[in-house]
């Protein structure tokens, strides 16, 4: 497979549920092999619908999806054996042992039994001593680990994590990111959905923003932040001032308590940031500059901006 061929290619995908609700309104998305893609979006945005469609749980209304070049409907066997899915809900059978249910998943995806592999997988997820426990006796976090083990049991090349950190403690989160990192190194493509922006910021290569069934943005994480982020320019002055000089009132500057720092907030999306003008106006006002600093806003701010703008 060449560099440019996407592992998943989604074209014009729409989904209208039987009750008439249109959950996806024409999504186009190419997912690169080996990347970590985070899908960000508020409740009801269509994230789960999108993932479910790729995995074969929801029939698309129109459009097409290919996985590794195969159509998800015509060649469903080829596409599905490449995919592992950790669902959003904690769905596990009641009267089953952990070891059995994980072995079941492996079989379901057509892989011959491999106890050694499954044992290592359970150990990695700190489920080693829970092999013979009944799943209904596990805590919520443990159940999520079991779901991850099930999704990885057949050694998929693509992993979907639908809100993997909902109701998960710090330790499991850390374990999970370790696994994600190991998987990424072995070339697995990972798609995760989340409401938590720090999460996307922490681990994703690219971030897609979904709202109202549409993919609003898709960018390299850094590019997205650069492109969309509010930036702040902090100017440190040599000498403290009591008030912002009147001729600078248009910039909406903020003065720090001790009068030595002036903060200018600008939108990095705009062609003209006004920085150059500000700096020359500052020296015209007789203020001399000691240091300059720019700070970037977090994905969270970006995200709120995009979704608001769309509403």
């Amino acid at each position, binding site marked *: 497979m060449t560099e440019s061929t996407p592992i998943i290619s989604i074209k014009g995908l729409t989904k209208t*549920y*039987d009750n008439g609700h249109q959950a996806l309104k024409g999504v186009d998305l190419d997912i690169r092999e080996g990347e970590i893609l985070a899908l960000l979006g508020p409740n009801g945005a269509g994230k789960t619908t999108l993932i479910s469609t790729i*995995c*074969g*749980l*929801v*029939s698309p209304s129109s459009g097409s999806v290919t996985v590794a070049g195969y159509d998800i409907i015509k060649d*469903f*066997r*080829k*596409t*599905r*054996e490449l*995919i592992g*899915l950790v*669902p959003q*809900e904690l*769905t*596990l*059978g*009641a*009267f*089953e042992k952990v070891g*059995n249910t994980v*072995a*079941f*998943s*492996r*079989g*379901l*995806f*057509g*892989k*011959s039994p491999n106890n050694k592999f499954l044992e290592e997988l359970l150990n990695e997820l700190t489920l080693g001593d829970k092999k013979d426990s009944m799943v209904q006796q596990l805590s919520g976090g443990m159940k999520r680990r079991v779901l991850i083990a*099930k999704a990885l049991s057949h050694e998929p090349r693509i992993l979907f994590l639908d809100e993997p950190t909902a109701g998960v403690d710090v330790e499991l989160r850390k374990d999970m990111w370790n696994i994600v990192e190991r998987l990424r190194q072995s070339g697995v493509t990972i798609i995760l959905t989340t409401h938590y922006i720090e999460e996307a910021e922490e681990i994703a290569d690219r971030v897609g923003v979904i709202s109202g069934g549409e993919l609003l943005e898709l960018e390299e994480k850094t590019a997205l932040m650069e492109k969309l982020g509010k930036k702040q320019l902090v100017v440190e002055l040599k000498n403290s001032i009591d008030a912002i000089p009147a001729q600078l009132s248009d910039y909406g500057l903020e003065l720090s308590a001790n009068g030595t720092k002036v903060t200018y907030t600008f939108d990095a999306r705009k062609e003209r940031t006004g920085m150059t003008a500000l700096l020359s106006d500052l020296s015209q006002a007789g203020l001399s500059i000691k240091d300059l600093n720019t700070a970037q806003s977090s994905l969270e701010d970006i995200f709120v901006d995009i979704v608001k703008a769309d509403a």
Partner: protein
Amino acid sequence: MNIEAVKAIYRAEMRRTRNTLLQSVAAPVISTALYFVVFGSAIGSRIESVDNVAYGAFIVPGLMMLSLLTQSISNASFGIFFPKFTGTIYEVMSAPISFFEILIGYVGAAATKSFILGVLILITATFFVDLRIAHPFWMIGFFLLTCVSFSLFGFIIGLWADNFEKLQLIPSLIITPLVFLGGSFYSVDMLPEFWQKISLLNPVLYLISGFRWSFFEVSDVSVGVSLSMILLFLFACMVIVWAMFKTGYKLKP
């Protein structure tokens, strides 16, 4: 063909039976033994024989059918309904597996259970009555066909039902009456002529008649008709299940 997946489903289903051994095997065996005590010994001792077969023995095929039908349906319907109910069906639906393979896994397991159950009932029966099987080959044939076709029927009910009430509806409202009125405990010519005619509309009658013939060579209708009826039923179930799968019936939004 994803053999591993079929094996996985089959094994998981058989495991489920082991976990509920008492309910799925012991209960039907005990209730069958009770039928023998009540109908075979207590009442049967007052009934001389039916078509020259001792009454106790006469009811054995009907009792087996009664259990096979109800248990095949309940096992198979529950087998597919439960994962639908808990949501774990997502895994099967997202696996590289065709509907046909899902069917083999679930229906195969349910039919196996029924078969084991039937054998147990047969063994139980030998403690109460003298049994001879005139046509063992036909007997096994009817036995297997019944297990498979009614497990398939149960699977359809399990797919169709979206609540527990519906799950029970058809078995208790339709199947049980049909089995009781299908000549489990009597020969149809013991009925008034009018009811004999009505009985011929009951598909289960053909099943029990054919099965009984394979034991005692006595039947209400000819064995060929019986065989055709059960094959027709099996075929109808297959068509229904195929149509359901084709449309992703109630499994895929």
